[in-house]
């Protein structure tokens, strides 16, 4: 008895755009825009289906920078739905959605509680007149919080059978280093809570299984190619004096993946196509109801290199794989195919030769060894780019991958010399 079941999620980032896509398509755009909402909807569906006692959302429900009205309104309607099903929600505001950025006119139902700022708030969950759980939490007032909020949590004199702490921030291992409510694992383990419902880190992790359980649920929907793999929420069952049951359930609408395909020895385009299809197939086996967006990196030395570095060839491949895709219920969209292959030119022969091409090759090699000189060369060229606005968008730090740039420049040149294209 006196067990509680709840779902723990965080970093919904409703209405945040996708970053890092190379190509847009109206149908794809439509599917992308709905992805975070669909994933959140699946979470609320899960709450109802699993008959949970309450829902915990640890911060970053939306990005206040985006100023999306729709995000807040849609969130509100989902809250109404849960409320109608008798499921309360406990929300801690995070760095992206601090307390004051929530709409004043947003009518959240009665049993949706946003933790207040400043100090830790203690809420009580009751069922049929019995107190089943204490839920402690604190919200961010502004975007950057540098104090250690974990220190503000403490159990009351007569705690409930189950105590849950809701905190948005970064847990460092020994020395806290990040900007968002940094704290250490030691800070939280001794406090006597059963479960720390954390948020902020987008990769889902169970840091500790029990005593106390410490969990980052991660964001339920990836937004760029750094957030690949399965995304979802945790269904948690806690009973006093028992080990908590923590179950991950994927809820994402769209899954992002980077795929690397080695083309060494591959001579025909059909083989390449088969390899890509196989790679895509391997993700379809995981039984998740999500669509897929992939970036493909081709590697290895192959006779196909000449074809692959031609943009039209890549374009055709992309079109081939993307044909009819975003319209399907579960679609697979190939964002880009990066040809990291190397030409099947016999570099040795060229280098040994005594011609202009050999000089070129030797110069490239010399350049790649002297990293300082290379850096100077590239920076000097970057300075020639006289569009400050564009520069700002691209990033002040400029291009970092000097070696990669040099390699590509070499391929461009050699290609032109040897094939005239």
């Amino acid at each position, binding site marked *: 008895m006196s067990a509680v079941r709840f779902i723990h999620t965080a970093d919904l980032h409703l209405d945040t755009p996708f970053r890092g896509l190379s190509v847009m398509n109206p149908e794809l755009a439509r599917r992308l825009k709905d992805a975070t909402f669909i994933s959140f909807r699946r979470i609320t569906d899960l709450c109802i289906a699993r008959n949970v006692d309450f829902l915990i959302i640890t911060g970053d429900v939306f990005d206040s920078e985006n100023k999306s009205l729709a995000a807040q309104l849609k969130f509100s309607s989902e809250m109404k739905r849960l409320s109608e099903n008798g499921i309360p929600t406990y929300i801690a505001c995070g760095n992206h959605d601090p307390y004051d950025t929530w709409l004043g006119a947003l009518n959240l139902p009665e049993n949706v509680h946003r933790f207040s700022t400043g100090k830790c708030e203690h809420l009580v969950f009751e069922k049929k007149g019995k107190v089943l759980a204490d839920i402690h939490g604190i919200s961010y007032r502004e975007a950057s919080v540098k104090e250690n909020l974990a220190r503000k949590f403490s159990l009351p004199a007569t705690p409930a059978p189950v105590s849950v702490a809701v905190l948005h921030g970064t847990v460092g291992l020994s020395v806290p280093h990040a900007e968002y409510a940094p704290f250490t694992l030691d800070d939280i383990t001794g406090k006597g809570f059963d479960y720390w419902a954390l948020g902020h880190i987008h990769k889902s992790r169970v840091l500790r299984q029990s005593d106390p359980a410490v969990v980052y649920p991660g964001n339920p929907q990836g937004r760029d190619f750094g957030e690949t793999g399965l995304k979802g929420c945790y269904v948690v069952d806690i009973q006093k004096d028992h080990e908590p049951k923590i179950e991950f359930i994927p809820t994402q609408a769209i899954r992002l993946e980077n795929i690397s395909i080695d083309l060494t020895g591959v001579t025909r385009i059909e083989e390449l196509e088969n390899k890509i299809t196989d790679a895509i197939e391997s993700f379809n086996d995981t039984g998740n109801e999500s669509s897929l967006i992939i970036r493909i990196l081709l590697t290895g030395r192959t006779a196909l290199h000449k074809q692959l570095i031609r943009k039209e060839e890549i374009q055709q491949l992309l079109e081939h794989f993307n044909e009819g895709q975003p319209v399907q219920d579960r679609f697979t969209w190939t964002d880009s195919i990066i040809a990291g292959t190397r030409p099947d030119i016999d570099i040795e022969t060229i280098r040994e030769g005594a011609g202009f091409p050999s000089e070129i090759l030797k110069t490239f090699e010399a350049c790649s060894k002297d990293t300082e000189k290379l850096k100077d060369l590239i920076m000097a060229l970057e300075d020639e780019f006289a*569009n400050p606005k564009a520069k700002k968008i691209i990033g002040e730090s400029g291009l970092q991958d000097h070696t990669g740039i040099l390699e590509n420049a070499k391929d461009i040149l050699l290609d032109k010399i040897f094939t005239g294209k």
Partner: protein
Amino acid sequence: MIIKDIHIDGFGIFKGKTINNLRKGINIIEGENEAGKSTLLKFIRYTLFGYPRLKEQRMMPLNGGNHGGRIRIFHSSGRDITFERNGSDQLTLYEHDQASQDKTMWFQLLGNANDKIYENIYAFSLDELVGTQSLSDSGMEDRIFSIGSGMGNISVGSVGSSIQENIDRIYNPRGKQQVIPIIMNKIADLKKRTDEIQKNLPAYNELNEAIINLERDHANLETEISEARREKDRLANYLKCYDNFIAIRNTESELSGMPELKDYPPGGPDKLERLEVQITALKQRIREIEDGDDDSPGIPDIESELNALSFNEKILAEEADVDYLDRNLQLLIQAVKDRDETQKLLNICNIQIEDDLKSINSKWNGQNITAFDEVLIHQDRIRAFRKEFDDISNRRIEISASRRAVEDGRSRINPGNLLILFAVLALLVSLALFWQKLFLPGALSALAAILIFFSRKWILAPNPLPEYDNKLKELDNQEQALRAEYRKYINATFDLDDDLSTETALELLTRINSLKKEISDSRGLNSKLEEKKSFIAEYTSRAIAFREILIDAPEETEALVRHISVEYKNAKTASERKEALEKLIYEKRKILARTKSALDEASTQIEALLASIGEKDPDEFRAKYRTNDRVISLRDERKEKLATIEVIAGKGESQKVIDYLENNSKEDITNRLSAMESEIAGKSESLKVLHTQLGGKRNELKHIESESELTEILTELETEKQKLGLAYREWIENKVALKILTDVRERFEREKQPEVIRNSGRIFSKITDGRFSRISATMDKKEILVFDEHNTAKKVEQLSRGTREQLLISLRLGFIEEYEAHSEALPVVVDEIFVNFDHERTIRAAEIFSEFASDRQVIIFTCHPSTADYFDRKNINLVRL
């Protein structure tokens, strides 16, 4: 290396072609056009460096043989190796009879040169030289430079420009159509759209508040309006009551002048009226009864009619008979007719019967016929007789026929007589024998004769004929007997003696049958006749009986009957009328009595009525009632008007209304009313305005709530940023490539160039016989200059074609020298390059080549035999294809 031998198995036009003993120095291969020089050149290139991928370029053997061949070389290292390659590009290297397919060795042997290098450096043809001429200025220099740098047909300049094109396509400081500016525009546009939408967030809170305020104002105004309406309605009602108010006032004043209300029994005047009317009617009624009216006569009239009535009573008593006569009159008429008809028929029938009787038996009469029974049985009987007769006859015929047959069958020869003859003969024989004293034979023969004679009976078949005859006789007897019997029968039956055949007998029977029928018909007719007659008699007698009680009755039956009928009807009618009239009088008298008594009753009632309010005179009575009624009606009217006021203004309000109307004039009220109305109108207008504003704000709210594009736009924005980054990177990469290209080119020229230029300059000077001293390339690599004997610089386009070609050859050779400083020497192959040279130039060129060939192999293809003349014949290897 040096090519020693060439053996072609099958390649283009060649089959099994061998060229041996090529050697270091000048080798001239001479052949007509189409002899296969280019083919041979291709063979050398393919065999050494590999067959091309495209099948059509591989020179499939046209005349048979295995596709491919061998080339034997002497390597600079001293090794003697044979390259064997087939048309499928399979290479085998043979050295000391050891075969190997080691590609690495192949590469090494060739000094890591490939086909491109070979083509670009070592093998040059007329086309190239000619082709070069047609390029424009910088292109030509570049080409020369490129040839010099060993890049063959790809010019460094074109590579450079191609890269620059990429760079320019992506970004150009002032350009607006490049990839990057376009992306930037897109980004700016998307940002603008985003900003627009993001304004919605703060707007939402504001709108919400504005709506709440507007709603409050709206509600307040509504309340004010409804209050004003209520007040207006109240006044309007008062106004509506005004007329009633006046009416009430009037009523009250009239009442004040009236006497007290009296409690008269209700409906007095009505009752009086009714009674008076009743009396009038009763009187009228009496008059009518006594005197008669439009509908019925008065009593005296009826009485007089009654007296005048008279009729025949007697006939009335005979109703049954009259009825009978009437009903059956038609029957009578018909019966008379029938009787006559029937009589006729009967006569005819009887005559017929007479005749038929006679034809059967003149003695017979109808009795006999009637008594004749069982016709059918007789018929059968006679038929049986007939059959018997027929049987007998048939039998007779049968027997006769058989007898005849037997008779015919019998032999003409009478066997009995024959036997007798034999017996006689035997006797004679015996006699003869006896005569001869032959006693024994004679006795035998006599015995035989006796035997024959007495045994006739046994020998002979009985004569059947008599039997037949007996039978016939028997039959005759039978017939006789039968006939007798038959005749007896006929006699008994028909009482006839005649010899009747069976047919006739049968016919008689038939006739008897019909006669029977006729007789019965006659009887029928007879009885019918009798029937009719008796009916007629009966009827007539009944009719005649009436003559006694009628006067002027006709004689004839039919007319009589009609007369009777009429008379009867008249009498009946009159009698009924009498009855009716009597009844009528009786009734009328009864009514009269009743009416008179009612009249008395009514009069009494009137008196009582009048007395009930103490009056004797009806008019006074009426007047009193009238006054009283008026008082009642006034009082009622007042009550009613008050009730109406309450209906209009509300229950219990009447006093308030009256008080108000007492104190306020109609005019005042009307003025106040219109003032209220304008106030309401004004406020309603304001309400409408508020309502519109509210609607507008609500729409706005809905609109911004429904906006859903933001994420899409933000994602698109991110994508554009990504594209920007990629484009930028590509730009940088191309810039790097260009920079390095340029640097290397400069360096190449600076370092490598001199060597090549020097070599080439030296050769050029020689080949032009000193007319030109040297070559130089400018630092910006745009120009190659040649300096003539006077050290005047000349640009390439200033040279004549022949000189240009010499320059090209010099450059080539110069580069070969430079190249070989680091690599395995390969055979130089030139194809028809002297063709444009004049005599002088050819000599020069030949000299140069000879010198060049001193420690190299040079193979010259030509179709001019004269070419060989330019060389020292002793030192050349001449091969004719």
